[in-house]
Structure formats: structure tokens, C-alpha cells
């Protein structure tokens, strides 16, 4: 009995792992870009913009 044979099960498990890896990678990238956006938009008091201030809203 050949133990090395790749079962269809392994292919599906591999696909699932790739999808999970891609999702985690995308999540890391998302948090990174979100951080850049948030930090670069802090006002002069260093307050994180939970909401956009009225001056920015008018732009």
C-alpha cells in the first residue's frame, strides 16, 4: 500500500491552508495600511480621528 499517494483530501486541505494564509496576510496588510491612515490623520493634539472633524468634513 503506497502511503505517499496524495488523496483528494490532501488537495482540499492544502487549498484551505492557502486560503487561510492569504486571509491572514491580507489582514496584516489591512491593519498596517489602516494604521498609516489613522496616524497620518491625527490632529494637532494627537487625537486619533474616531470621527472626522468638521473642517475635514467640509473638504
Amino acid at each position: 500500500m503506497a502511503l505517499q499517494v496524495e488523496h483528494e483530501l490532501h488537495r482540499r486541505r492544502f487549498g484551505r491552508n492557502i486560503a487561510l494564509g492569504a486571509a491572514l496576510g491580507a489582514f496584516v496588510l489591512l491593519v498596517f495600511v489602516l494604521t498609516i491612515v489613522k496616524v497620518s490623520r491625527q490632529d494637532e493634539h494627537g487625537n486619533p480621528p474616531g470621527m472626522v472633524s468638521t473642517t475635514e468634513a467640509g473638504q
Partner: protein
Amino acid sequence: MSDFSAIDTGKEAGAGDFLQLLKPRVMSLVVFTALVGLLVAPVSVHPFVAFTAILFIALGGGASGALNMWYDADIDRIMRRTQNRPVPAGRISEGEALGFGLALSLISCLMLGLAANWFAGAFLAFTIFFYVVIYTMWLKRSTPQNIVIGGAAGAFPPMIGWAVATGGVSLESILMFALIFMWTPPHFWALALFMKDDYSKAGVPMLTVTHGRPATRRHILIYTLALVPFALALGFTSIGGPVYLAISVALNLWFIKGAIGIFRRDEAQAEADKYRSEKAFFAFSLAYLFLHFGALLVEKSLAAYGMGGW
């Protein structure tokens, strides 16, 4: 030993099965209405923050879909339409669906809170709670009004989108909620008329089963008439305008015409033409909602040129 039995069954879940747990079709409606709610709000949001917010609102909607499939696996096994879902088909275990749904719920609410504001994050958490606990666990199996109250869960996304931008609730966002909330019953009852699922065998008290089909037809007409004032009222708020109102009047007249048509038919007529009116009404109801929210977007884009709104 367990490894061998797993190979024997050949039911290892693929990535697509987990995607199916998120109910992608329902998610598309959530994304669209939440996006409109966010865009028409009077406060502008950074495009990337908006993208992140919509993504996690969608994920939260998907999480509630997974939790719904976990809890409803017993019903889904009985009804033919749902037998091939990942849990009843045995590709994903009930425990996996539960864990997947809970983890995604937590991530989506936390991330929405961090990306936008905590009111929006809490609102998303409440929506998931409402859909899973109030609708799925409680109302769906206990009352024929399940569709009516459960529809609230599907109606919250534009309010969440609005909350992402403004951090709160207002008349406009409540009317967007009311539009979807009142639209849901006629939409689903029309579906129930021609999708003859075995709800009674599964123990789900659908109106068609508990009160009969003529009563369902009457209910469709009543709820359609009750929907109209909310749809039109939205046109007189700050996010409405002449374009929205014109589109809304036309859509509502057509919707009422369809509802009256359904009310006047009996089962013999419906059987004779294979539920043509009911299917047409159902298809139009999708366009009805899409075009209402599309009209709000048109008003918003016109405003950039000084033309939208009142």
C-alpha cells in the same frame, strides 16, 4: 484509526465550503446597503477607513450566516433547498461552524470599532446578536411573524454604515432601516408562495403553512401598502430629493400593482401559470430595493454639482 475513517468518508472541507458558510448572496445586499448608508451620510470618511468598515460589516454579516447555519443544521437537513449546505452535507462539523462564526463575529466587531468608532462596532455586535439569538434561535421556530421581526437584522446595515460616518443615529438612518424592514415581509412571502419548501416538516411556522396561502397573499398586500409611506418619507429628508422621489413614486406604484395582482389570484390560477406573478413580484422586489438605494446615491452624486437634494 480516526485518520483512516476520515479518508473513507472523503468529506474534508475545502476553502469554498467555509466561504459558503458566510452566505455570500446575503452578504452582497449587506455590502450594498451599508455602503450607501456610509456614502450618503453628511460626514465624509477616508476611503480606506470606509473600505475597512464595509469589509468588516460584510464579515460580521457572514459570521451571523455561519452561526445561523450552525444552529439551523437540523432544519437544513430536512429541507431539500438547504440539504447541500456545508453543515448538513457533513463537510463541516457543527462545532467548526460555531467556532468559525464566533471568531469572525469577534474579529469583525472589534475591527469595525477600531477602524471607525465603537458605536458602529457595538451596533454590528447587536445586529449579529439579533439575527442569531432573536431571529434564528427564538422567533424563526416559534411564530409565523418570524420574517417580519427577523427582517430587522437585514435592515440594520445601512444604519451601521451611517454610524461609521456620523457615530450616531438620525431620522435618515432610521428611515433607511424602515425601508428594508417593511420591504422584507412581502419579499419573502412572495418567495414562500412559489418555493414550496417543506417548512411544516422542518417545524418552521411559515405564514403559508400556519395561515394558508390566501392569508399570505393578503399579508403581502397589507405590508406593501404599509411600506409605501416609509419609502416616500425618505425622499423628504436631507438625503432624499426630487430624483429619489420620482423614482420612488414609480417603483411604489408598480410594487402596489404587483401586490394587488397577487392578492386577486388564487392557487388554481397560480398553479396554472406556474406562479408567474409571484415570481415576477419577487424579482421586482429585489430591483425595488436596489433602485431605492441607488437613487439615494444619485442624489448624493448630484449634490457634488450643486443639484441633489431639496
